[in-house]
């Protein structure tokens, strides 16, 4: 019945035999999307690895100029948000509406804390003239161009990651609205599950960005 298309939430669509199969198909589709994301970020990681192997000294010096403590704190914030997200999915599995709402709100708050810390870090870069462009200046480094390359990659990678966080926050807000309206139950919580996969994926990207950008050159020769 076409007029009931909006009520598809619980019913098994005609192309599926069972609700379990329908849910597996959603999960598989989400994973295929995440793999395109892996390849998308993978290209940036590859460029970073290539140029880091080409200009190890400058990349080391530029990496040491980042604040590893703030980076570690932000990693912890993001891991906490993944924990609250997985609890929201669990609340969905059990059909607990209030718990879904509480954990989605917590996840959203932690996501914004991450973005706030990121904004603080980027602002610091502006003050230090570490923004690639005409006014770029990194003291103690001879090859300014190579240092700009590091910061171009830094902003491209952390920026793209932050954009994913913003999109994730949007998705969480939609879920929150739907959970508030009582759309989810133990029989149907697929959207929470899928956004959960997305949120954890964004977390995994940061799990790699943090050591690659902030950590691997910490104690190299001081310039």
């Amino acid at each position, binding site marked *: 019945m076409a007029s009931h298309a909006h009520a598809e939430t619980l019913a098994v669509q005609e192309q599926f035999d069972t609700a379990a199969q329908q849910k*597996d198909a959603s999960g598989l589709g989400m994973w295929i999307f995440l793999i395109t994301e892996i390849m998308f970020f993978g290209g940036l990681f590859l460029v970073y690895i290539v140029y880091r192997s080409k200009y190890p000294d400058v990349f080391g010096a530029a990496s040491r100029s980042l604040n*590893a403590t703030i980076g570690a704190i932000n990693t912890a914030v993001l891991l906490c948000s993944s*924990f609250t997200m997985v609890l929201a999915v669990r609340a969905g*599995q059990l059909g607990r509406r209030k718990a879904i709402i509480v954990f989605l709100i917590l996840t959203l708050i932690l996501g914004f804390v991450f973005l706030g810390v990121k904004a603080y870090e980027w602002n610091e870069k502006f003050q230090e003239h570490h923004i690639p462009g005409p006014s770029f200046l990194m003291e103690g480094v001879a090859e300014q161009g190579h240092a700009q390359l590091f910061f171009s990659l830094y902003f491209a990678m952390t920026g793209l990651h932050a954009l994913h966080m913003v999109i994730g926050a949007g998705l969480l807000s939609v879920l929150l609205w739907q959970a508030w309206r009582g759309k989810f139950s133990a029989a149907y919580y697929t959207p929470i599950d899928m956004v959960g996969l997305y949120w954890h994926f964004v977390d995994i990207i940061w799990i790699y960005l943090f050591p690659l950008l902030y950590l691997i050159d910490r104690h190299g020769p001081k310039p």
Partner: protein
Amino acid sequence: MSAPTEHVDSVRTYAIVWIVLLILTGVTTAVAYVDLGHFNVVAALSIAVGKMLLVALFFMHVRHSTQLTRLVVSGGLLWLAILITLTMADVVTRGWIGVPGR
């Protein structure tokens, strides 16, 4: 109206994974300040891989997912490995053999 029988992990399991992830974050940060030479990169990336596995297996439920999903996920990582390995095989070895006329 039977719900698909889902495996529901306990809050305790998630909490343990979460705490281990936080500890690993602390460890990777601390180890970065110890001079291990080239092993700093190895240590940082090994810990990152460990954290990724914890998040994927527990938080993303890969350990309860279908074989097909697991195959697709591994396939994705395999292609990423091909991308990085083949490119680095070129970049790293380019200067090894003198090319006449270069």
